[in-house]
C-alpha cells in the first residue's frame, strides 16, 4: 500500500514534468470517455424496461391467419390480430389482459357560441389498460370491466386535453361530444411519459400521445369517418378497402396478456391448439405459426431504438478507441524519455516488476484524471443530446450507474493501454536505458 502511494507520488511528479503531454492524454481520454458515456447513457435510458420490471411478464400473442400465398417464405406471423382472433385469445387469457388500438376521432367542443371541431387521437382499450401499463391519474380513474361489456359511453382524457377544454379543472362527470355521441368523463390522466410507448409501436416508439381513451367495444360501435386506425389487410376485397374492422382478412388489434411462471407455456400451448382448431375449421391455411413475445423483446423486434442514437453510440465508441490508442502511443514515447531515470532506478536495485508497477500507476493516474474530466464532458454531451429536436430527446438521462461506469472505464482502459508500453520499458535492460540518456 505504501508502495502504491510512493508510485502515485512518482507518477504525479512525472506528470508534472511532462505536463503538456499528460494534459493531452488526460484530455483525449476525457473526450473519449465523455462522448461514450453520454451516448451509452442515452442508449440505456431509451432501451430500459418502461414498465420498471413488469415488462418481462407482459406478452404480445401473435397467430397467423394469412393465406400461404400471401407470404411465400416462412416468416413471422403478422404483428397484430384480426378482431375475431383477438376476442378469442382475450377470452382465453385467465389473468390480466388488454386489447387495444388507436385512431382519430372528431371531438366537438362548444364554448359559448363558438363551435370547434378537432380531430383527437383516440385509444380504444379494455379496462385493465391503465393498471397494466401503470398510467397515472390526475382525477378520477379508469372505467370498470362492466363498462366494457355494457359499452358505456365513458372516456378518460389526457391532462393536455383537460387543460384545453376545461382549463385544467376537475372535469369528472362532465360531457364531451365525440362522433356525435355524448361521453361522460370518468378520469383525467396525469402527465404520462411512458417511453418507449411500448403498448403500441405501430406509429413509432415516440409518437404523439393520445388525448382520449375509450372502452374498446364502445369505440367499435362509434361511427368512424376515417377508418379504425392502421390496418394490414391481405385480401383485395371491398371489406379491406373500406377498412372494415370486422374483416376476416385485416389484422389491427393489439393484445397484451400478463403471464407468470407456468402460465406462459400454457398460453403458448393454447395458441398452438387454437391455430390447429382454426385450420381444421378451414379458416386458417397455415400450420400453427404463433409467437408470444414479452415487452422487452417486442421493443427490439419493432426497432424501437432510433438508429440515430445507435449511430452516435458507435461513433463515440470509435472516439474512445482512438483516445486510448493515442494515450498508449504517447505513453510509449513518454516512457522512452524516462529511460535515463528508470535505468538509474534499475541500477540502484529496482526490479523489473517495480518499474512496471511504477509506470502502470502513472497510467492509472492519467486514467483517473481523464475519467474525472470525462464526467464533465459526459454531462455536456448529455445536454447536447437532450437538445435534439427528436421526440425521444427529453427522455434521455444519465443513470447514476453510468457515471461510476465511466470512471472505471476510463481508469481500466487507460491501464490496459499502458500495459504494453510499460512492460516493454520495464523489460529493457538497464544498460540500454542508461546509454540513451
Amino acid at each position, binding site marked *: 500500500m505504501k508502495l502504491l502511494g510512493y508510485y502515485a507520488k512518482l507518477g504525479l511528479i512525472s506528470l508534472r514534468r511532462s505536463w*503538456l*503531454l499528460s494534459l*493531452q492524454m488526460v484530455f*483525449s481520454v476525457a*473526450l*473519449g470517455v465523455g*462522448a461514450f458515456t453520454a451516448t451509452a447513457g442515452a442508449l440505456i435510458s431509451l432501451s430500459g424496461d418502461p414498465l420498471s420490471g413488469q415488462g418481462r411478464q407482459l406478452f404480445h400473442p401473435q397467430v397467423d391467419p394469412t393465406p400461404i400465398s400471401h407470404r411465400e417464405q416462412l416468416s413471422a406471423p403478422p404483428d397484430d390480430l384480426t378482431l375475431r382472433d383477438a376476442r378469442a385469445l382475450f377470452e382465453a387469457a385467465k389473468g390480466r389482459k388488454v386489447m387495444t388500438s388507436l385512431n*382519430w376521432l*372528431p371531438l*366537438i367542443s362548444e364554448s359559448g357560441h363558438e*363551435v*370547434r*371541431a*378537432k*380531430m383527437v387521437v383516440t385509444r380504444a382499450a379494455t379496462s385493465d389498460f391503465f393498471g397494466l401499463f401503470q398510467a397515472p391519474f390526475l382525477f378520477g380513474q379508469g372505467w370498470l370491466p362492466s363498462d366494457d361489456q355494457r359499452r358505456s359511453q365513458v372516456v378518460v382524457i389526457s391532462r393536455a386535453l383537460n387543460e384545453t377544454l376545461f382549463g385544467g379543472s376537475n372535469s369528472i362527470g362532465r360531457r364531451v361530444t365525440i*362522433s*356525435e355521441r355524448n361521453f361522460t368523463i370518468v378520469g383525467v390522466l396525469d402527465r404520462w411519459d411512458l417511453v418507449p410507448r411500448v403498448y403500441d409501436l405501430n406509429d413509432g416508439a415516440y409518437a404523439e400521445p393520445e388525448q382520449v381513451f375509450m372502452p374498446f367495444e364502445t369505440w367499435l360501435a362509434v*361511427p*368512424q*369517418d*376515417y377508418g379504425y386506425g392502421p390496418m394490414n389487410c391481405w385480401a383485395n376485397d371491398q371489406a379491406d378497402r373500406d377498412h372494415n374492422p370486422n374483416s376476416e382478412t385485416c389484422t389491427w388489434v393489439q393484445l397484451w396478456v400478463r403471464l407468470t411462471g407456468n402460465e406462459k407455456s400454457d398460453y403458448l400451448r393454447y395458441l398452438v391448439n387454437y391455430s390447429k382448431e382454426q385450420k381444421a375449421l378451414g379458416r386458417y391455411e397455415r400450420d400453427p405459426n404463433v409467437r408470444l413475445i414479452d415487452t422487452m423483446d417486442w421493443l427490439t423486434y419493432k426497432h424501437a431504438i432510433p*438508429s*440515430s442514437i*445507435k*449511430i*452516435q453510440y*458507435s*461513433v*463515440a465508441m*470509435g*472516439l474512445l*478507441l*482512438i*483516445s486510448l*490508442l*493515442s494515450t*498508449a*502511443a*504517447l505513453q*510509449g*514515447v*513518454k516512457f*522512452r*524519455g524516462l529511460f535515463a531515470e528508470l535505468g538509474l532506478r534499475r541500477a540502484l536495485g529496482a526490479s523489473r516488476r517495480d518499474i512496471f508497477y511504477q509506470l502502470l500507476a502513472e497510467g492509472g493516474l492519467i486514467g483517473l484524471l481523464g475519467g474525472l474530466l470525462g464526467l464533465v464532458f459526459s454531462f455536456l454531451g448529455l445536454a*447536447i*443530446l437532450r437538445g*435534439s*429536436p*427528436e421526440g425521444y430527446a427529453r427522455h434521455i438521462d444519465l443513470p447514476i450507474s453510468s457515471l461510476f461506469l465511466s470512471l472505471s472505464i476510463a481508469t481500466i482502459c487507460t491501464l490496459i493501454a499502458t500495459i*504494453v*508500453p510499460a512492460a*516493454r520499458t520495464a523489460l529493457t535492460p538497464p544498460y540500454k536505458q542508461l546509454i540513451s540518456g
Partner: protein
Amino acid sequence: MFDNIQPIARALRKHKGTAALLICLVAVAVTVIANCVVVIGGVVQQAHISTGINEGNVVVVQDISIVGSRSGMPVSDKLVELEHLPYVIGAAFGATPLMSDRILNVSTESDLERFTTVHLFDGSQGYPEALGVHVIGGRNLDDLSAPDVGATGEAPALITEALRLRLFGSATGIGRLIYARDSSFRVVGVVKELRGRLSLGPSADLSLLTVRRYDRQDMGGLYVIRSTDGKATEVLTEVSRRLHELNPYHAQPFASTFKDMRQVAMGRRVALARALASLVVMLTAITCFTIGSITSLWVRQRRTQAGIRRALGATKSHILSYFLIENSLVVGAGLALGLITAFALNALAMQYLEIPRLSPSYCAASVALIFVLSQLSALGPAWRASVQAPAQVIRNQ
C-alpha cells in the same frame, strides 16, 4: 530525397511499437470519419435539394368533414373565398411535396410494356400557380382546359424536365401523349423540377402534374395556398380561420407553412449531422495532436543525429523531408489499412444503422483530409529539427 526511405524504414522498425499504434490510430480514424462524412454529406445534400415549388410562400391546410357535419360549401366556392383573403396569390385543392406520395406507372406506348414510375401531383384549378412551379418549356396549364373531376380520357399535364429527358430524349415533348393504366395525359408544358420527397435519387424528380376542375364537389382534403413574399405565417392563420368560419363542423387537423414542414422533415437529420460533425472534429483533433506530439518527441530524441547529418552536409530540406516522409509512411500505412476497414464497416452499418453507401469520393476526401492534416501536424516539429544549427546540437552533446 527518396533514398531516405531505407534508413527511415530502419528507424521506424526501432520504434515499431509506437509506429504500430499510430497506424492503428489512423486506420480507426479514417474508418470512422469516412462513414460519418457519408452521413453528413447526405444530409447536406438533402438540405439543399429543392422540391421545385415556391417553398417560402406556400402554406398547407388540411380541411376535413367529420361525422355529423352538415352539408357544406363545395371546394370551388371555398377556393374563391380563400383567394379573396389578403396577401393570397393563389389557392388550390391538392397535395404538396412532402405529403403522401402518389405514384403512377406511365409510358409513351399505350401497352405500358416499358414503363416509368412517376410521382403524380393531381389538383384543382389553380394548382400550378398555388404551388409556384417554374415552367421552362411549353406553357402552364390553364383552368379552362382542365377536365372535370371524375372525367376519363385525356388530361393536360406538366412534366418535369427530368421526366421529359427520360421519355422523349432530346425532343421537347410538348404535345406528346403519355399513357397510364386507366388514363392518358397530353404534355402541355415542362417544369424545372418537382420532387415529392427530399430524396437524392434521380427518380425523385420524375413527376407529372395535372389539373381537374372541381365544381360542386364537397370534399375534405389538402388546400395549398401561395402568399406574397414574407406573408406565409399570416396567410396560414387567416386561411385556417376562414375555413373554420365557412363550416364549423369541419376540422383542420393539419396546418403548416411549407417551410416548417420542411424543417420538421429535415430537423432530425440535421441534428444527427451536427452531432456527428462535432464527433468528427474531436476525432481529427486527437489524431492530429497525437501525430504532432509523437513527431516532436521523435525529433527531440533524434536531435543529435539530425545535427550530425547537417554537419556532414545534409541540407535543411533534407532533414525536413526525412521527418515528413517518415510521417507519411506511417500515416500512409494507416490510411491503406483504414480504407479496407472503412468499407467493411460501411457494409455492416448500411445493414444495421441504415446509413448510405460509402462512395469513393467521400472516401478519397476523408483520406486526403487526414493525410494533409497529419503532414501539417508533423511539419512544425520537423521544421524545428531542420533549422537547428548543427554546431549547437553537437556542443550540447
